[in-house]
């Protein structure tokens, strides 16, 4: 009997919560994933996605990233002609792609040319909204082309990573994109040009284990998750809890795998200084 009453109360609370949520317009408020406070959306947006209370760097869209990093109206997109195909006829992949195309999300990375304080650069910004920013053929092709263009035009390349790794739905073909991008990065490197890898939350798997770890200079955002295996997978494998702060940017810097940890507000200026020292 009491269980039934509990059910009724649960149901009541649930519907009330739903009603309340429905009365607040979407996107007016957002919750900081770190301090859990509700924050006025506009306040966060005007602060480049940084929580005004705890300073946590919340994930922002590709458009917002362009505003943070590049000069106004300097962005010119490249390699947009490459579109994903479901070559393995993997179950559910095509439906997934179609849904994303409907929402006008084109691929796990946008690539192009832009200026940072007047200095022309080539950029790639990964997009976790597209199948966790996973690396498939198109992503690999765009990055390889970016490096090749950088080599030909003697331009620096900056890639902002955030990704779940290789894209399972493209099987070994996506695995091979790791070699493809790393090989292109090597040729680019041999040409004496600068590659800055910007790693943000979360970056794991085949992306960390290829171009993201190959920057001449590696910059990470504070407290980002960066690793090869995801923390849950490791915990399941070794059957013990991971220490606090494991696989964060700070952890990686301590172990010697990240050059600079840079707050979002200071990124553009840091990039400008690095580019200038390299005489671009």
């Amino acid at each position, binding site marked *: 009997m009491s269980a039934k009453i509990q059910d009724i109360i649960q149901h009541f609370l649930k519907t009330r919560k739903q009603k309340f949520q429905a009365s607040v317009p979407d996107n007016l408020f957002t919750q900081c994933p770190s301090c859990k406070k509700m924050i006025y959306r506009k306040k966060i947006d005007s602060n480049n996605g940084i929580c005004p209370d705890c300073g946590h760097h919340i994930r922002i869209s590709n458009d917002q990233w362009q505003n943070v990093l590049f000069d106004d109206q300097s962005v010119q997109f490249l390699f*947009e002609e490459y579109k994903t195909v479901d070559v393995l006829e993997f179950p559910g992949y095509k439906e997934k792609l179609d849904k994303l195309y409907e929402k006008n999300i084109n691929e796990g990375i946008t690539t192009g040319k832009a200026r940072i304080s007047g200095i022309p650069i080539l950029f790639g910004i990964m997009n976790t909204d597209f199948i966790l920013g996973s690396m498939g053929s198109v992503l690999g092709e765009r990055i390889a082309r970016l490096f090749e263009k950088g080599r030909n035009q003697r331009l620096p390349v900056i890639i902002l990573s955030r990704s779940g790794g290789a894209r399972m739905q493209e099987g070994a*073909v996506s*695995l091979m994109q790791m070699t493809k991008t790393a090989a292109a990065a090597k040729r680019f490197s041999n040409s004496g040009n600068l590659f800055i890898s910007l790693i943000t939350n979360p970056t794991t798997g085949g992306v*960390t284990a290829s171009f993201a770890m*190959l920057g001449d200079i590696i910059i990470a955002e504070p407290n980002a998750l960066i690793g090869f295996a995801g923390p849950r997978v490791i915990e399941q494998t070794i059957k013990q809890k991971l220490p606090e702060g494991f696989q964060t940017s700070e952890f990686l810097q301590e172990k010697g795998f990240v050059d600079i940890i840079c707050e979002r507000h200071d990124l553009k200026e840091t990039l400008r200084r690095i580019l200038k020292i390299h005489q671009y």
Partner: protein
Amino acid sequence: MDYTSKIKKTIKSLEQISKNQGVDLNEEINSLEKKLTKIDPEKYTEWQEKKKGHTPWERVKIARTLERPKPQDYIEHLIQDFIPLHGDRLGHDDNAIVGGIGYLKDIPVTAISTRRGKELKGNMDANFGMPHPDGYRKALRLAKQAEKFNRPVLFFVDTPGAYCGIGAEERGISEAIARNLFELSDLNVPAFTVITGEGGSGGALALSVSNKIYMMENAILSVISPEGCASILFKDSARAEQAAESLRLTAYDLFELGIADEIQKEREDFNSNPQPTMKDLEENLYNDIFHFSFMDKEKMKTQRYNKYRSIGFFETDKNQLPEKILNTVNGNGDQSGKKTNGHSGNFLKDMARLLGLK
């Protein structure tokens, strides 16, 4: 097979354009040539039959059989006068990687393999064939040493994947794999990889940057284990069999996808009597080493670069062909990507599809 002749036709047209208008289209031509399937049309039915000899899931299980020759056994059979070498010179020596020098017939080579046991103790010693970062750094050190002494490098790979644990992350497993891909892609000596059993994701990839990838007939190479894929994508690890099929991980699939370059047939009783198969493999590797060693270094490196560079499948928007081709077919520097006149629509359509391989 209709597909093959179409590519051939496109290559011819590209060569014509290249010649007439003096534009360098080698990159495009190379990438198309790479996509020319190497399966002889007359042997296509035979190929299909062989492919269907085992289901993908059966092959996964064969690849994992304990009695199957382990990668270090290939070194034992193929490399004479083998001297094992140890350590990454950075403070560690990984037991999951075997490396050293010896002869393949009469050619001095560096041979590197993962190590797997045939029983529990051996498996524990080799960490079940899962290398730590130190193993990959050891492999890279030996490959660089081979470069110095102008020795070809042979990799024999069978691993469930790179080790997943605290120490591996602390010592930078991502960086170690990335560094191997980066440096090995530019190695100044020819390299060959034989996938002997399980080719587990990035852990196998870091030892598979080569001029040619051989796969044993029942070996597999996959971005994720079928079990892992089933539990993540199908939310049910029991559907591994279906995942194995979907992932296209067998040697035959990988050959068709342009990833594997050779399939090494496994003779009867391969597990109990590997010698005849090893002899075949020795002969093939010897011929390849011979061929690639006489190649101009830059050409050899370009061949390797193009091998990986051309792997990938995508569509290119018909109206937005790659700049260079557009400029060529338009005959001027128009980069708007909208004009497609100057050549028959069919040709462009074909080329768009072929470059993206649909």
